[in-house]
Structure formats: C-alpha cells, structure tokens
C-alpha cells in the first residue's frame, strides 16, 4: 500500500460523524462497493458471456451469465418464474418471486443447475452449498414491467420520463451472502483480490441481475410482438438501474459488525481528509469537480420520494445545491486548500444532506489519492474479538467515557429513551423493531443498544477498585461482557460505534439502512416508512459489453448537456 503522507487536516471527529441523522444523510462516493467493483472489472478486462438463456413466452426458464476474471469465473444463475400478481410482495416473509438467483463460484454443470433449480427458487426454504456465493430474488415493477413489454412489443420505445420516474424494471429484496442458507463463508473467498473489498460477490450478482432484467424484458417483448418488437434502446437501458427494497435487516448488521463498519467510515473520512489537505487544485481537477457537481445535481433533480421525512431532506438538499452553486460563482477554487475551505463553509451553510454530498463529491477528482483506501474497508482482524482481560477497571471506565460519553448521562429508564426494542420474530426469523412498553418483546431483545449497555457497564465498574483487572470483573459480571468487548474494539476503531440512541422513541431505522446502502453505492433513496426503503442500484452503469476504463467510474452521475 502506498504510504500517503499523514493528512494535515484532521479527520472529522466520531462525535460528529457517527450521529444517526448524519449517517442517514450519507451519499455514495468513489469508495462505494459498486464502484470499486466496476473499476476493477474494467481495469482487469473481465469478460462476460451468457451461455444459457432459455425462457418461454411468460418468462419461465433459466439463464446463466458468466463473469471471467483473470483468475476464475463467476456465474449468475437466474431462474424466471411466472408469479400471480396476488403473490407478489417485497416483504421478506414472501414465499415466491418473479425471479431468483445465485452467484455460483465457477461455471455450473447441468447437474448443478438441476440441484439449484430445486432450491434457489425456494430462497430461505431451500439450501445451497459452498459453490454458491449469494442467494437473492427480484420482483417485476408492477408500475412499469408490463407497460415496457407491451410498448416494445408494439415496436416503440418506452417513455424515458416514465423510466426515470421509477428507475428500474425489477426490484431485488434480500441479497444473502456469506454463509447464509448453506452458501460459502466469506472467509473462504476473502483472500481473492477481487473479493477483498466488502460485498463484492453480492455487488457482482446485482450487476448481472440488471443485465438479466434488460434481457428478459426484450425477450418477452419479442415473444409478444414477434417481428414488430424492438429491443430496448441502449441509452434507455443504461438509465435503468436495478431496484432494491430493504427492510430492517440491514440495520442490525452495522451494529453487529462494529469493526467492519468502522473500516468503511474510516476509509471515507481518511479520503475526505486527504483531499481537504490538497494545497492547490489543478485546473483539470476543478473542472472535473464542477462537472460531477452539475451531473449530481441532475441526479438529485430526478430523485423522488413519497415519504415526508425524505421530501423535507430533499427540499433542503436542493436548497443546498443552489447555495453551493452560488458559492462557486464567487470562488474559482484556485486559492490555497480550496476543498478544505469549501467543506468548512458547508458545515455552517448546508444541511447534513448537502454536507455529506459535498464531502463525497470532492473525492471525485482524486482517485489517485484515495482509491487505495478501498483495500482497507474489509474486516481483517479476527483477533479484535478477544477481550483483553489484563486491562484495568479504571482504563475500561476511561474507554467507555471516550466512546459513549453521550450515553452516560442519559436516563435510560425514561420511556422516551428506551421506547424501542429490537427482536427476531419466530415467524420468519427476521429482525424487527417494536414498542417495548406496548408489545411483549422485551424478553427477546437483541443487543442493539450499545449506548445503554455501555452506560450499565460503566455504572457496574464504578464499584470496583481502579487497578482490578477486567478479567476479574467479567468473571463476576458476564452480563457486561458484550459492552466491554465493544468498548475495547471502539478504542482502536474510532468510528465503530453509532453515537446515538438506537432504541429511542424517535429513532429512525431508515438512517441505519441509508448508511449501509450508501456504502453499497445506492442512489434515489425512497423511504416507504420509517423502517423500509427503496433504492436504485447501478442506474446509469455501462452493461458488460460497454464497460471500459472510460465509463467504469463516473456512470453514477447522469450525462447533462454542457
């Protein structure tokens, strides 16, 4: 790894970064997992093929899409189904889908396809094995699918405005990875360079799912229209992303993987600090920034949400972009430390949405300075789990005060501070969040309130002598083992902990979801409630046959007329 000089601009402090409202305002950036993948695929010249595409007129059948890296081949195996409309649901409790997928490690033989066909369509009720790296499903957009099929069948292109309104033709829901339902553990592929950055297998499966979406709509239009039918025009197809509908499941993930989450945030914060430390911006860098800002504004302009919370944030964001444009009329960015001055200005002048969008955008001209950070975003320290029991009680108290200071003076018995409880339902084994004082769930509560737990551990430590070792304390107090482990992890991983109350009455689970999805590279966040969000993935991305070094990176920003 290149030893970049230590940034002369301090990292933004965790107390500011790790608040739910800010995490819930994050935007994709150069270090988003989709973009890490598309850059690598182009750089390494991955080759793509579709050796199997066998569907009837209703879209029932299967396809295989292969992605060949310099070292190996991955295959998306897609099963198409004909789902009666009344069975179509994005809920994880659904039992049938329009399409189901697995990313297969290698090229599947007919016997593999046969085995997978009996399991992948059943999703959680089926089993895959270590040759599968993901398991996922998608439903057609009821708003758009049939309309696009019939328009193409009639020999016409669909209205680009309608396409932009929805953004996709199929919407994925859960994309299961590492070890789930029998799939390969991430550990078994973690040493492959192309899998080192987080979620690359899942991102590849979604990238190929988007190709399937396009190919299937063309196939069904041809089946319906015969000679009259036309394929989706490439420009319109490129605008299409693949949708995703995400419930609560992602929220617990970032709390349950503190070191991993730290590494994501820390990489982005380090990137921001490196760019802020740039003394003079070259003309080409300034031009690129202005270009992506204009294109990002176009993306924001087409961003729609039906939810009042996001509508208010979008109004703020649009005002932020106007303020930013005005600021840039008076600042040509040729002065010293232009990015640092811009960020400092934004902290007082813009909403959190605007601040975080700007922080992501200033990275764009500086791939050479920041892209190496992608290699630091995985969780590479299995020993972080072990508790150092030789640490003294006084040191443990100090660690808790450092990371959880915000939590120590909160009255955790006050109903508004502990109104929620996270739990797993017996029905479908999915994480849910409920009302502690209204539902019989407290006995089943998951440990997803690190602040409360740290405050309780801190109170218990107060009764112990300063130089007692933690090993002794934990022998008597195993109930604080969870909090002590996290405090020790957070001591070396400053962005590991969300510094906000994750069980407060006014907590918005969508903030947790947004933080994770922004790192995936998602755009067009559209919360459907306070705990469920729709997004678009790979909108604007080049298809495999178009992918090259020139379009592998900035595809997320729509082209605009100069």
């Amino acid at each position: 790894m290149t030893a970049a000089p230590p940034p002369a601009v301090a990292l933004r402090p965790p107390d500011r970064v790790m608040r739910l409202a800010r995490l819930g305002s994050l935007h994709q950036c150069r270090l988003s997992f989709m973009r890490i993948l598309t850059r690598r695929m182009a750089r390494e010249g991955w080759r793509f093929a579709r050796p199997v595409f066998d569907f009837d007129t209703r879209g029932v059948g299967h396809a295989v899409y292969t992605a060949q890296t310099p070292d190996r081949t991955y295959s998306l195996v897609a099963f198409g189904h004909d789902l009666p409309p009344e069975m179509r649901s994005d809920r994880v409790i659904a039992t049938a889908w329009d399409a189901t997928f697995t990313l297969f490690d290698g090229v599947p033989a007919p016997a593999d396809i046969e085995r997978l066909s009996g399991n992948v369509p059943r999703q959680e009720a089926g089993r895959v094995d270590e040759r599968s790296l993901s398991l996922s499903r998608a439903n057609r957009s009821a708003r758009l699918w049939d309309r696009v099929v019939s328009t193409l069948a009639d020999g016409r292109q669909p209205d680009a405005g309608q396409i932009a309104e929805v953004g996709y033709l199929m919407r994925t829901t859960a994309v299961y990875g590492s070890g789930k339902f029998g799939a390969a553990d991430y550990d078994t592929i973690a040493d492959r360079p192309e899998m080192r950055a987080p979620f690359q297998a899942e991102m590849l499966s979604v990238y190929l799912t988007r190709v399937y979406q396009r190919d299937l709509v063309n196939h069904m239009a041809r089946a319906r229209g015969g000679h009259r039918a036309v394929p989706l025009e490439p420009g319109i197809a490129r605008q299409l992303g693949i949708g995703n509908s995400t419930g609560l499941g992602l929220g617990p993930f970032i709390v349950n993987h503190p070191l991993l989450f730290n590494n994501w945030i820390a990489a982005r914060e380090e990137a921001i600090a490196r760019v802020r430390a740039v003394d003079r911006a070259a003309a080409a860098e300034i031009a690129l920034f202005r270009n992506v800002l204009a294109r990002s504004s176009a993306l924001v302009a087409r961003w729609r949400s039906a939810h009042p919370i996001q509508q208010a944030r979008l109004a703020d964001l649009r005002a932020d972009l106007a303020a930013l444009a005005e600021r840039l009329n008076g600042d040509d960015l040729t002065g010293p430390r232009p990015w640092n001055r811009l960020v400092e200005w934004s902290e007082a002048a813009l909403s959190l949405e605007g601040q975080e969008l700007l922080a992501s955008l200033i990275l764009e001209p500086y791939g050479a300075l920041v892209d190496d950070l992608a290699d630091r975003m995985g969780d590479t320290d299995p020993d972080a789990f072990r508790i150092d029991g030789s640490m003294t009680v006084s040191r443990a108290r100090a660690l808790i005060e450092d990371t959880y200071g915000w939590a120590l003076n909160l009255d955790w018995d006050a109903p508004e501070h502990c109104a929620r409880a996270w739990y797993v339902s017996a029905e479908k084994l999915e994480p849910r969040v409920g009302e502690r004082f209204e539902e019989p769930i407290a006995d089943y509560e998951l440990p997803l309130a690190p602040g409360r737990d740290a405050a309780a551990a801190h109170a218990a430590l107060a009764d112990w002598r300063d130089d007692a070792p933690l090993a002794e304390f934990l022998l008597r107090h195993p109930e604080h083992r969870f909090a002590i482990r996290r405090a020790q992890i957070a001591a070396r991983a400053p962005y590991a902990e969300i510094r906000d109350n994750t069980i407060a009455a006014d907590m918005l689970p969508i903030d947790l979801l947004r933080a994770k999805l922004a790192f995936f590279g998602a755009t067009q966040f559209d919360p459907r409630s306070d705990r469920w969000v729709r997004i678009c993935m790979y909108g604007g991305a080049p298809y495999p046959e178009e992918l090259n070094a020139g379009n592998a990176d900035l595809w997320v920003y729509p082209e605009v007329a100069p």
Partner: protein
Amino acid sequence: MTFSLGEVEAVARKAARGAGYSWGMAEEAGRAARWLCAAGLDGAGLLAEALAAADGTDPAELAPRALDDWRGPSGRLCPLMAGAALSDAVAFWKETGVTMAGVTVPALVLPFAAMAARASGANVTVRWADVTAVTDGRALSLCGAANLPTGPADVSVSAGGAMTAPLAARTRATPRAEDWAALNALAARTYAPATEESRMKGAGAGLTDND
C-alpha cells in the same frame, strides 16, 4: 448436508443465549463452536452437550470462583464460563498454567486456549483424561483417545507444547442431526412469538409494497 461455519456460529450464539447466557457469553459460544468445526472437531455437538449440562443452572454456579481458584461453586465448571476467563486472563496464568476442576465438556475449552495462544504468541497445551491437545491459535493437534473423552474432568492448561500432527482444517461443518436440532430448539427460545401487530409494523412494510 453440510453447513457453513457462519451458520454454525449463528445458531450456536443464539442457542447459548436461549440457554440463559449473557449476549457477550453467547458470542463466545458462537466463536467457540465455529473454531472447533474449522479445526476439525464437532463444534455443534460439543456445544450442545455443554448447554444441555448447563441448562437450568445459574451460569454463576458453573463459573470459576476467582482467577486463582478454578473451581465452580457447584463443583462443576462450564467450559464457556471457564474458557472465557481463561482467554481473558492469559497474562496472569501464562507462567504458571491453571487447572480447572470438573469441566463438563473439556474439549470446549480448546477454542479459548486458542485465543490465549494467539494473544500470547505461544502455543498452549490442554490436557484432560488421556488427551493432550496443543494449539497455536489456528490449528489443533491431538494425542490420546480417538474419541475425545467427555467430562466432567479436570483440565490443565499451560503455555508451551509442540504441534505434532495438526488436524486438517475444515471450511464446512457436518453436525449430527440431533445436535443441530438441540441447538435450534434452544435458539428458538430467543424468538419473539409473532403477533399481528409485529407482522404489520415490526419490519416496516404496510400493505403497499407491490408497485
């Protein structure tokens, strides 16, 4: 059918929680079962045995009295409680070793000895009955009985020892069906019974998720 090690860890963690351990201890149980499977032993079966031996007993009754007294108030020791303390406290016993009295499932101490080995940078030797096990933190070599003798047994742990013929590392687990069922039954205790309110509100979807 084989299971991923992630599946083993997840069900082991929930099973320990369902058996009455704290979440922090449950995490240890998950890691321990996973490590045993990766090292080539039956992690699911060993954990199921330990949880069955502990079920209904206050974990404190099965924990060492102190860092210099590795006996439990009940006369037996739970390998999770004793093992976690062993890993936590390696700095204190590294020179002297420890002897644990009446460990219900001695082999379940091994993953904790492995954590101690990695933390201290030295191999750790674990002995009980006629078994001598040595770990460098990642792999495990075993001498003695082909079928690991179960407890309760006194277990001695000391720094040092040489790895002879390490067991082949595994990336998949093949638990016996009855052990897997026992772990899942304990894990099910952690799931909240579904209510209509939970179904409609808990995960956040209303009725309009189909457009």
